[in-house]
């Protein structure tokens, strides 16, 4: 089978995989924001909050997809 043929066969699977990774990224933001415990993807906002409250910062870097 040609490489193009293999690609055509794999396209539906690739689409599912891509959708899954997109969904993970979208759901992570939705889940974390709804819980209200984390400042999401906004480091300057975290710095400002730490200055205001006197608390230290915990910054988690997370690779989601």
């Amino acid at each position: 089978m040609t490489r193009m043929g293999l690609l055509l066969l794999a396209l539906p699977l690739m689409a599912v995989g891509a959708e899954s990774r997109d969904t993970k990224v979208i759901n992570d933001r939705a889940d974390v924001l709804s819980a209200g415990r984390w400042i999401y993807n906004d480091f300057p906002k975290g710095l400002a909050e730490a200055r205001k409250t006197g608390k230290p910062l915990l910054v988690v870097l997370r690779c989601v997809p």
Partner: protein
Amino acid sequence: MACAGFDGQVVRHDTRIEDLLKKFVCVRLVQANDLDLTLFQFDYDLTFAAFFMNADRTIYGRFGSRSEQKNAEKDISLEGFGKALAAALELHKAYPMNKAILAGKQPLPVAMKRPEEYATLAGKYKPTIDYEGKPAASCMHCHQVREAERRSYRSDNKPIPDQSLYPWPMPAVIGLTLDPKEKAKVAAVAAGSAAAQAGFQVGDEVATLNRQPIISMGDVQWVLHNAAGPSTLDAVVLRRGKTANLQITLPKDWRVKSDIAWRATTWDLRRMALGGLVLKHNPGTNMALRVDYVGQYDEHALGKRSGFKKDDVIVKVDNEERPMTESELLRLLLQNKFKGDKVPFTVTRGEEKVELTLPMQ
């Protein structure tokens, strides 16, 4: 998604660390797009990393360690994370009186202030994730930062330095096994290692390393990542209620013992130097690297196009026949051979000996 269990516990404020987390302003960053590399210097192969810091950007400590591909949470635990959080709070209480002892934990000057300044990443990503369009595709991964750094050396025909090839060495490289459920407590000391020669004992708690207060295994790795070879590191350990001063002597090529096979970024090194081959080391007195996988597409298929087959055993590379691991062979090639060089390989295939030539990329 590696570390999903651990990350979930942290993000949901697991009851075992909830009270500690309430004392922090918690920030979650899920993209390397526009990441401030002058501040966030960590092991970019990690899928979970944490910083404890002051609002003035002074870093109290780092958290996050990994040494395996499949068992991604082997070197971390919620217990260890909790102890690091508690220790960071103590450093915060004492701040700024303790600013001097934190100096060594602060970020070092970097070549690029943002990932997008690297040529291979320039213009490819917007500063934020495109949640309305293609969220995953628009998200730059942290490991791409290390890859971009190495590609810049490669495109300039420069050797990739050891610090970039073997980043964030695990303490095991110097003979120390630390308990992931503690801050930095010694669980084992390898006989004959640099740690053994320094006098480390099982049960020792690493209090300071290179005069930096240590609150996690990640902090130990920060010191090791920036340690030259040869060099010496001063350590203070707590041992049965007393302190002991130790000195670790690091030989010239100490970090070469690191196994980088698990790292996502090693995939790109294999493209450059091995044409996409993945090798497994057969211990012995001579080189014996078995081809475990042959890449199939594009630049990762150059090994295949050059005639390599799965289960070939590489016994000689450019007149080099010493036994070595895949990580060591990558170093040999990436520091001595450059794009376009054609390197002779000798492989055994069953009873047959085959001579092949692999172009470098």
